[in-house]
């Protein structure tokens, strides 16, 4: 009873602080032109993903064999592909796929990394050694190559690509959560909770996880650019989203055959990938600055 009270009081105290910190971070990011660009692109991506079906001038799957490989014009701003489908419409629908990949990977990777990291950090000793060794094994691969191997084992599809990326993306999160946990596992309030008889699971869930959350969220944002590039790479190699789907990497793969005569087939999807991943990188860079106390004070 008593410890649940302290837990709730702690949460009540922290929440408003967290919110105002979030507002401050946004304000800080907005001041720098590069991270403001990142914010704008991210907002644009979300808007497109939600409103894509309304904005798109054509059906992204509708073939028009009379008008194949049309160069960009007023009717088709970004041209048409080898089946006469409007590339702009396909790009707009593709935004939702990209966002879905990011979202699903993040909600899988966050909890897994958090669980492994906090458990390893809290218990220490042999549990820590075993969990961190496993983490290191996964870390000893470039993410794309491990993801390739997983997709090969699971079979090529968008969902399997998401699973594969998630399987390769959790180790850095786990390392971070562990490092965070180590800094306050000896803190007084943890000892207090333990003395009151709280179980380990309860302490981890109620006292440690909320403390790790901010830095883990930031790390997840930083990872998103990599996730986008890996997903696009898998799509390009034919191991992610399968052809009729307007996934940007897969669009580049099919457009490659017509590249020499019809440059717009590969150029626009590639620009879309580049813009979104650059936006996340710039945003991540800004976040890093925003959370560096030395920087915060100087500006």
């Amino acid at each position, binding site marked *: 009873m008593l410890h649940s009270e302290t837990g709730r009081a702690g949460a009540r105290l922290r929440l408003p602080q967290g919110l105002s910190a979030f507002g401050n971070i946004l304000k800080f990011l907005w001041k720098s032109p590069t991270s403001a660009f990142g914010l704008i692109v991210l907002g644009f991506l979300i808007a497109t993903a939600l409103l894509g079906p309304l904005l798109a001038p054509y059906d992204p799957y509708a073939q028009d064999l009379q008008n194949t490989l049309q160069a960009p014009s007023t009717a088709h701003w970004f041209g048409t592909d080898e089946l006469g489908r409007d590339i702009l419409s396909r790009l707009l629908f593709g935004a939702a796929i990209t966002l879905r990949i990011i979202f699903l990977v993040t909600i899988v990777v966050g909890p897994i990394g958090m669980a492994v990291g906090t458990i390893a950090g809290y218990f220490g000793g042999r549990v820590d050694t075993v969990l961190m060794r496993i983490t290191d094994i996964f870390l000893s*691969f*470039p993410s794309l190559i491990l993801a390739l191997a997983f*997709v090969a084992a699971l079979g090529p599809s968008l969902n399997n690509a998401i699973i594969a990326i998630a399987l390769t993306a959790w180790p850095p999160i786990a390392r971070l959560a562990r490092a965070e946990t180590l800094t306050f596992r000896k803190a007084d309030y943890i000892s207090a909770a333990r003395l009151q008889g709280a179980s380990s699971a309860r302490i981890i869930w109620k006292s440690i996880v909320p403390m790790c959350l901010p830095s883990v969220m930031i790390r997840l944002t930083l990872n998103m650019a990599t996730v986008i590039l890996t997903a696009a790479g898998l799509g*390009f*190699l*034919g191991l992610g989203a399968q052809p009729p789907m307007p996934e940007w990497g897969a669009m580049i793969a099919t457009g*490659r055959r017509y590249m020499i005569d019809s440059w717009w087939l590969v150029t626009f999807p*590639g620009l879309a990938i*580049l813009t979104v991943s650059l936006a996340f*990188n710039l945003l991540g860079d800004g976040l890093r600055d925003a959370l560096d106390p030395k920087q915060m004070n100087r500006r």
Partner: protein
Amino acid sequence: MRNPRWLSAALNQAATIGVTLLGLLILTFVIGRIMPVDPVRAIVGEEATREVYMNVYQQLGLDKPMWQQFLFYLRDVATLDFGTSLRTGQPVLDDILHVLPATIELATFAIVIGAGIGIPLGVLAAVNKDRWQDHAIRVFSLMGHSMPIFWTGMIGLLVFYAALGWVGGAGRMSQFYIGLVPDRTGFLLIDSALAGEWEVFRSAVNHLILPAALLGYSSSAYITRMTRSFMLDQINQEYVTTARVKGLSERKTIWSHAFGNIKVQLVTIVALAYGALLEGAVLIETVFAWPGFGQYLTSTLRMGDMNALMTCVLLVGVIFIALNLLSDLLYRVFDPRTR
């Protein structure tokens, strides 16, 4: 050896590597087992009788329990027997050794370019911290980090090969020269130089330059960032102020004092970036039809070639562990403070 602490650290590290390697083997074994390819069917073909099928099934040890199969796998790996590729019918190890030089050649050029761009830019950014140069360099290098390299490869081919004709197209050399130079080392530049075929050498450089530059640019982002932060650490230290106060030119202060102190760190960073190039190589080799490790890996994926895939994954893991170890060792050898 003189120092027991040093020895125990080395033993500890050896144990860590052993455990990581074992984990790696478990991982490749699991990937091989869950692959939706029937290894027996792949060998005997679709029309084999049940008898033949069961025969091969037992030969492969698939009737044994999992842990025993894993021990067989360990034994095979220990004796460097990685099985036969289903696609080429050759031993996987021979296949890989055959394609690896092409990738090493590409990656080596790329890392030279990447370090050549990244290190000076990192120093420049640190020296001009928060000025426009710093911001411009930051955007330039993040750009390299954000581009989907398979796409940049295509655009590069469109612009520099198809439109301008400055560089060679796909492949390691012009079709015309293939088979002209005897395959001695597998490194085309070395082979053609040994044979005195300078035409082939020029063609090879022409084909190498674009993919290597793009790979190098993408890896320069990491090198730039790390160089910048290492330099910032140095510039804020007192010995730099001392050097300035005693009237040393700014160029000497930066390059021979501060930069001299980050060389060791830079070597380790470049070693790690070299390993990370493998990832880009897989994609760029597909675009440039580069007959290297990356292309081998992607074609094994498409064919469901289990033995080859397991070995490729294992090899990448081993290369990464080795590079990590190497960068660790370099640190210990060259930086007296770590002793």
